[in-house]
Every structure is written in C-alpha cells, then in structure tokens.
C-alpha cells in the first residue's frame, strides 16, 4: 500500500496517462529511460503541456505517444515526421516532438527524415536505436551492425548500417546529438537544448533491447549491456559526424552539430508577409 502511494507520487506522474500503465515495454528496455529523460526535460523547462504534440510511428518505441499526457498521435509506420510536418506548419505555436524507432525513421520513413532535415522543419526527432525491429520480433534494419544475428539474418548481417548522426548532419539538421540509455542526464540536457532551439533537431538514443536483439547477439542482461555502454562510449562534443561510426569497440557520443539556419516555418512566414504587403500596395494603387 505504502509503495503504491509512493508510486503515484512519482514526480513525472502528471506527464503520463496513468490509466494506460503498465506500458508494453520489456524489463530493461531502453525505451522507458528515453521517455523518462524526455518527461524530465519537459518538467525542468516547464513546457506548456497544452502546446506540445508528441508524434510516433509504429514499433515498440512508437507506443511512447500513447503514454504521454499531451496531445499525441500514433501514425502509420514511417510517417511520423511527415505528419509532424503538417502539424508544425499548420500551427507554428505548437512544439512538435517525434519519438520513434530506427526502423520506423530510417527504413520505411527514411525519405521523410532527410527531407524534413533538409527543409529544416522546426521539429525535434528523438530516435530509440535498438539496432533492430523490436516490435515484429527482431528482424534486421538499417542500423543493424554488420554480422549481427537477427531473425532475418540467420547467417549474419551483410548490409552496412547507417551512421544516423552523420545522415542527420548531412541532411541539414541544426542540432545533432547521440547518447546511450546510460547517459540519462546528458540525454535530458540535449532534449532540453533541442526544445529551445528553432529548427530540425535529431537525437539518437542507443537503446538496449534485452529481450530480442541483445539476447540474440549474446550481449548478456540489460545490466550487462549498460555496463558495456559505459565501457565503450566516448564523449566527444563537436566531433565530425562523419567520423562517429558505431563499432564493436566504440560508441562515440556527444553533441555533434549545433548550428543556426533559418527554419522552413520562418522562411514561409517571411515570404507570406512580403507577398501580402505587395498585394496591399497593389490594391492601394
């Protein structure tokens, strides 16, 4: 009884739809850590909860949108960014955050990702990268490391993975960071920073998937995976994103891009103003 009371008093309870708990995620999954960091960021920034929209695609992490107690939408597989683009442009007063998976954002939804980054749409994309399609039972995807075992790479993966932060930077994102689920405080700080920055931001969260990917690939328990993250992660702020490939012996983490570039929304508003002023002048003549 005492324990339940304490649980309902969790400082982040008000940010969650508690009637939807327990969530679907496995014990030791990194998704909860990601969500916790996000909610803590909202809390510390005192974000107006009526003015934030969380959008997800399909996948284990895709369920995040359904758990946060703000306006939220669970789109079709891969389309979260395109949906979010519509929301942000139609109502620029809203803060729009996409929380989705590596498969959702970079396989089926890859095209939307690069184009939203190129346009510098003012949305914040947070990706739970667990190196596989968790929801469908552990098939390989665009981030699966070479040689890894998944249910559709029974002889080992022969596809080269994307380096997501490099892809984001090359596509035009104005803020790019990578952390692992171990770097809770730094992840939260990055989310805060991105929420305060105008433009397309991308945060990759290397996330344990103890039930499927880590088990198939003999990485041990969730705790073992976290220990391993600690051992091989290397904080290098400002490092060239092209040189941040994840290898067996190193996960380069940090804030890799933080630049200024006018957002699509800003350019659209400026153009609209100019066009309308010209029309008024014409009318006055």
């Amino acid at each position, binding site marked *: 009884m005492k324990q339940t009371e304490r649980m309902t008093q969790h400082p982040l309870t008000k940010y969650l739809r508690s009637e939807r708990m327990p969530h679907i995620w496995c014990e030791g999954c990194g998704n909860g850590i990601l969500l916790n960091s996000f909610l803590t960021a909202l809390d510390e920034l005192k974000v107006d909860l009526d003015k934030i929209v969380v959008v997800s695609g399909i996948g284990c992490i895709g369920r995040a949108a359904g758990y946060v107690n703000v306006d939220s939408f*669970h789109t079709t597989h891969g389309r979260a960014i395109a949906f*979010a*683009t519509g*929301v942000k*442009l139609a109502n620029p007063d809203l803060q729009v955050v996409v929380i989705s998976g590596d498969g959702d954002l970079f396989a089926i939804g890859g095209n939307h990702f690069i*184009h939203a980054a190129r346009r510098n749409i003012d949305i914040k994309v947070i990706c739970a990268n667990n190196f596989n399609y968790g929801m469908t039972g552990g098939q390989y995807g665009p981030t699966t490391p070479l040689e890894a075992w998944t249910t559709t790479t029974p002889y080992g993966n022969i596809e080269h993975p994307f380096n997501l932060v490099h892809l984001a930077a090359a596509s035009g994102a104005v803020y790019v960071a990578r952390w692992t689920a171990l770097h809770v405080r730094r992840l939260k700080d990055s989310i805060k920073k991105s929420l305060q920055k105008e433009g397309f931001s991308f945060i990759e969260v290397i996330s344990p998937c103890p039930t499927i990917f880590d088990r198939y690939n003999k990485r041990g328990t969730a705790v073992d995976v976290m220990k391993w993250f600690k051992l091989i992660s290397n904080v290098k702020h400002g490092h060239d994103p092209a040189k941040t490939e994840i290898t067996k012996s190193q996960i380069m983490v940090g804030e890799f891009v933080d630049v200024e570039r006018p957002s699509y929304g800003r350019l659209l508003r400026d153009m609209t103003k100019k066009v*309308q002023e010209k029309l008024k002048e014409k009318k006055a003549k």
Partner: protein
Amino acid sequence: MRSRAVLTGTHFLSGDLACAEGAIAAGCRFFGGYPITPATEIAERMSRRLVEVGGVYIQMEDEIGSLAAVIGASYTGKKAMTATSGPGFSLMQENIGLAVMTEAPLVIVNIMRGGPSTGQPTMPGQQDVMQAKWGSHGDYEIIALAPSSVQEMFDLTIDCFNLAESYRVPVMLLADEIIGHMSERVKIPAPEEITIVDRKKPKGPPNEYQPFKPDDDLVPPMGCFGEGYRFHATGLTHDEKGAPKTVSVEEQTKLVRRLCDKIRKNTHKIVRVQEVMLEDAEVAILAYGITSRAALSAVRKARKEGIKAGLLRLITIWPFPTELVAKMADHVTAIVVPEMNYGQIVREVERAAKTTPVSLLSKLGEEPHRPSEIITAMRKALQ
C-alpha cells in the same frame, strides 16, 4: 485577407484551377502535395494562392508524406487537402485508412488518368472509382463526388470540405483529365452566398473530453491539437478515449461498425444525383463525370428519335445510391452504364438493379464516349 480568398465574379478557368479556387473559398488553408499530371495545376495554383491568403503550401517528398502532412494539419483544426492522380492515389492508400481510423476531416482530389501503373498520364480515365472506395485495407466508408463541369470543380470542392467536416471523414473529388484540363466559364459567388460547414467542437471541460465518443449522429466532436484537450489518436483500434484496444473483439466491432455506419446510415443525406427525363424512361443511362455530358446529349437526341431515354447522373459516387438505382431499375427495361474503364461502377449498378439488365459501355484511354455510341448502346439494350 478574406477578400483575396473568394474571387467573386465570372471567370474562364480550367477545372484544376476552379478546384483550387473552390478549396480556398471553402476555407482550405493547407495543401500538401506532390506534382503529377493531370493534377499539377491544382498544386501550382495553391502554391501561389495559399500564400496570398496566409495559408501553407508544402510540396512533400511523395504522396505518402503529402497525405500524412494533410492529416497532421487537419488535426490542428485547419481545413486541408491534397491533389493527385492514379500513381499518387495508390501511394496514399495506407494513410487514407489512417484518416478514416482517426476521423480526420480532409479532402483528396484525384484527377483520374489512364492506368494501371504509369499508364497514360495525359489521357482521361475513370479507373480509380473502385480504388477510392476499396483501396485501403479493412472495412471502411468514404465519400466521393464526381464533377462533370468546371463549375462543379469549384462547387463540389466546397461540398467536399463541408462533407469532410460534417462526417469527420476523408472526402474525395474524383474528376478526370478532361474535366481537370478543359476551360469553361465559372461563376464564383460572393463569400456570404457560400455555405461553409465547420467540424463540431467538444462542449464539456477538456479533462473530460473523449475524442472518439460519438454523438447520436455517430460523429464525435473534434478537439484539436493545442486547444488543451491533451488527447491521443492512433491508427490502432481504439476505444472512445483513444486508448489502443488491439485484442478486444467488442471494441473492434464497435469502432469499425460506427466508422462505416456514420456514412451508411446517412447515405440519404449525403447522396446527390441529377435525374433527367427518367419519369417515363424505358432505358436509363447511369453516368458520372465527363461521360455524363455525352450521356445527356444522347438522351436528348434519343428522345427526338422516339426512344424513351433518361439519365441518372451520379454526383455522389460513394456512398453508392443503391436504393435510388434500385427504384429506377424497377421502372425501366434496361440500364446502360458508359464508363472510361473496363467496368467498375457498373458492378454496383448490377447489384442494385437485380433483374433489370445492365450493360456496360466501356472506353479505355482514347476520347470520351460519343452521344452516338451511347444511343447505339441504348438501342441494343432495348432489343
């Protein structure tokens, strides 16, 4: 910039441009699309006009993203649309299902060309009329209108927005390349003469809002993002609160039935047709879109030749006016269906007509039907 929104007066416009003007007059302030013949001119017009009226035009990377963005815009309360043709319409199918499931009011214009695949981009067709109804997976209902003139490209586009807002459903304007590209006189009325329908808003306090709890008309009032309702919408089967219900048989049955019934049970309110000389007709033509123009002229000529011909022109294709067609079938000896496809709406007509013989007059690509061809088909049907 209200004055720039409705270009009151008489204009000489192509169907595509009239459609864009109808959309803006209806209050559309968001367009997400991807260029495709023969619908490109709608995007071009919207890119110019929306900026004038303070709206948003975005050219997405494909039609999948276009419709996703339009659904997003709709959820902020904006009236939103996209325009495409066959290949793009095919790409939109999954998100049509999402719009149906999340009850997003929006308009999809399809200027139909010849298919399958890339087919004949610059030639007319009516080959997507079944896809419009059945293209996405699962059971669902949509509304689709078929304009047969440039004036109707303007008028019916407004109707599409009003129906979308009334029923919280994607509404399609199914035109064809000829209607899209030909130019005719269009009268744009004064703003106060245009009926505009807006979605029902929730009445109670935001914390009690249930986003998918319907009123008696089976349509739920719609709160929008940023209004303080803090609600969740999902393409998964959900309850009235919007919570996913992925294994409940009851919730699946309840939701899918309601999504279909809100259209099916209102068919009589939604359906619009034009009846020409049907009272004493022996043979009826059932046509829609461009073919109905030739059909009308065929009926007039046939009458002069002593054939008791009549025309039922469908303005609403979906929901299909089954009852109306059945009633008509009781009074005629034959029905002829000219279509620019290899037999699509004719199937619905056969289903409704029961024992009355129905014959298809199919044309693919090439020119639209000629009145003389329709008269010959009527004669044959009467033999």
